[in-house]
């Protein structure tokens, strides 16, 4: 089985990289980009039957730093 983990900075945490991307889009002439948030996608190739709880534990212990990041698990 496969799972995809989306890791994003929490709302309210400033994302300087996202801001830089937003400025770059503006300078390319794309108007109206009001916000950009940049995150990570991590794909996991897992033994069949791995529980969502176990994947959640992987996120809490390593894949995300929950001080600044939130995560979402998508089982594929």
């Amino acid at each position: 089985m496969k799972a995809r983990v989306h890791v994003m900075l929490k709302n309210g945490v400033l994302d300087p990289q996202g801001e830089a991307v937003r400025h770059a889009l503006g300078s390319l002439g794309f108007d109206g980009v009001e916000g950009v948030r940049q995150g990570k996608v991590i794909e996991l190739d897992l033994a069949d039957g791995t529980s969502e709880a176990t994947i959640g534990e992987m996120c809490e212990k390593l894949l995300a730093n929950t001080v600044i990041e939130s995560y979402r698990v998508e089982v594929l």
Partner: protein
Amino acid sequence: MRAAVIVFPGSNCDRDMAVALRAAGADVSMVWHKDASLPDGVDLVAVPGGFSFGDYLRCGAIAAQSPICKAVVAHANRGGYVLGVCNGFQVLTETGLLPGALMRNANLKFICKTVDLKVETSASAFTEGYNAGDLVGYPVAHHDGNYTVDDATLATLTSEDRIAFSYGDNPNGSVADIAGVLSENRRVLGMMPHPERAVDEGHGGTDGQALFRGLVGQFAQA
């Protein structure tokens, strides 16, 4: 005083740290990240700067899961001293020994220069060689030194006098200009600037000597 300097793949300030500690009189061992225990009788663990595991995933995240870090956390929980500098600070926040996180610098640039710091408290083994309010110059060299912490934790750090150093001219966007913080028991210090790069005239400054001498002197008196 017995000190251990942890070496990860990608550490690059480990030897500077050992030189600074030895110059202050410490007996220093280098400890590889795959070791599961610290040498007997270690008083201080120093987690050095560098780019452990290539900064993969997040700075310090992989190092924080290494076998030796379990021993470092146990050492801290027993009341042992831990100093984390630069990447070492990132590792200590990732282990949970210190609050907050280090994010990408607000201006997105790698910053490498000597900065003015204010010693915010002399009430720790690390800073007792200074007076609160002293201005010192230590080099910084980092891309991810933007210290971030939630408002409630910041209020706790402030009220408990746990901000050890702050920037005179904040280079990286850190909350409240914070350059270094102490743990609740004041025996774990994490900081982005490099005191070990300011201990010899050849470094261009010796403001870091008081930190190492104070720390090692603490044990000489005991």
